[in-house]
């Protein structure tokens, strides 16, 4: 479903990760780990096609990835239902009932998103992934602000998605209950400072070195 | 019936028409909004009274 090899990514003109490679088959989940600032967000944005890689390749079908970043993509003045319906329509997907139920949003259906608490807003952001109908979900720190019960809802949703032939990648600092997910620690992929300079860590500045 | 308005008929009549239309508009809007809110309030109160038993 996703095949990454020799990937190098940069942020602010600095190469932060290089030589990243992995494959992901349907039904699998991959958890990205690494200390703050190692480049998890940068890597996910590259995979989602939002920024070009410095080197290496990302092999992935069209219209496969759904991406959920630090921000939720939620309009504060629209209600929970309106927000979800909009994304369902954009992705040509079906109903929003399942997503509302899975993230326990039914009680909040007519609340404007700006009146949600931090965790409730996050749940709405996560529910959005279910209405995209995309097979590969990518999350950047999905459990921020969530309480234990909501983290449970999230795990269940991911498990159901995997069982249905989907796949998921998530960057997170906490331990999720997804015991059979693979874990990829990004620390070893930091470009070596003393190493060959431009060989395996090319940046946009390469031409000036 | 109609009074003789002379050469200013258009002005006078249009002034009256515009004003009455504006007044009618605000009256109508106020009443309609009032009726709507009252209806909603009734339904919510009924629901609550039922819940209270």
């Amino acid at each position, binding site marked *: 479903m996703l095949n990454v090899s020799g990937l190098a990514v940069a942020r602010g003109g600095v190469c932060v990760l290089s030589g990243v490679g992995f494959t992901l088959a349907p039904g699998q989940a991959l958890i990205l780990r690494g200390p703050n600032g190692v480049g998890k967000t940068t890597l996910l944005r590259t995979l989602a096609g939002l920024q070009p890689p410095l080197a290496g390749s990302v092999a992935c079908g069209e219209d496969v990835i759904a991406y959920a970043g630090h921000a939720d993509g939620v309009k504060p003045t629209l209600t929970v239902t309106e927000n979800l319906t909009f994304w369902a329509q954009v992705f040509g997907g079906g109903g929003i009932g399942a997503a509302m139920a899975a993230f326990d949003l039914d009680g909040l259906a007519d609340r404007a998103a700006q009146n949600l608490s931090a965790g409730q807003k996050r749940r709405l952001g996560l529910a959005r992934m279910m209405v995209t109908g995309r097979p590969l979900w990518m999350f950047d720190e999905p459990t921020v602000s969530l309480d234990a019960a909501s983290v449970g809802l999230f795990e269940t949703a991911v498990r159901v998605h995997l069982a249905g032939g989907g796949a998921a990648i998530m960057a997170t600092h906490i331990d999720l209950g997804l015991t059979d997910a693979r874990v990829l620690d990004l620390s070893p992929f930091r470009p070596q400072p003393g190493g060959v300079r431009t060989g395996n860590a090319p940046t946009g500045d390469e031409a000036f070195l | 019936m109609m009074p003789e308005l002379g050469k*200013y008929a258009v002005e006078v009549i249009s002034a009256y028409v515009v*004003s009455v239309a504006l007044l009618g508009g605000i009256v109508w809007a*106020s009443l309609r909004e009032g009726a709507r809110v009252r209806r909603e309030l009734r339904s919510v109160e009924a*629901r609550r009274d039922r819940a209270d038993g």
Partner: protein
Amino acid sequence: MQHKDSVPISRRMSLWEYANPKKFMQVSGAALPWVGGLAALCLAVGLIWGFFFTPDDFRQGSTVKIIYIHVPAALMGINAWLMMLVTSLIWLVRRHHVSALAAKAAAPVGLVMTVIALATGAIWGQPMWGTWWAWDPRLTSFLILGLFYLGYIALWAAIDNPDTAADLTSVLCLVGSVFALLSRYAVLFWNQGLHQGASLTVTQDNPISDIYYWPLITSISGFVLLFLTLVLVRTRTEIRRRRLQALLNRERMA
């Protein structure tokens, strides 16, 4: 509003905080039909009398009939703002909810009155001054008053929390009143030389004759009563809206 509540007696003590929306609903509910009926009567009598049964002025021709709308509307445009100023002050000092809501309810009515005065003035200006609009001080300050209404209404509409909105709009109303006064003087200063003069004060210089005076007075009282009716109706709506919101909130918590 009739519903049994199980509130401990001790909490009913604060009269301003608690009892007033209810009392207001009772009193206004009883008064409304009378005020409304009287308003309709006065308006109908004043306008019909003015339109059909007054003679033309020797200089202004039949356009003098516009006065029965123009002057009452202009008066109410100004006085509605004054009323909002007073109710805003009451809200800021006494935290009396009905007061804030009455100010909110009056604003659109005041704006409509202002617009009517502007529109009839413009229509009247065409035959009298040969132009729809001139930057006469009085007209200009009226236009600025209209802008204050717009800003005030927009601010109410933009804020969700009703108490926050009441506080902020009240502050705006106070500050706005000061600046409206300043603007009035500024405008007088600005257009001294080109002042349109005569036409506006015609009726003041030579005291208006009875034949125009009585229908005008009837019409003015009609406008005052209509304003009162509308403010009552709209305030009642606002109170109901608050109550509706409160009930929904409560439901949600359950």
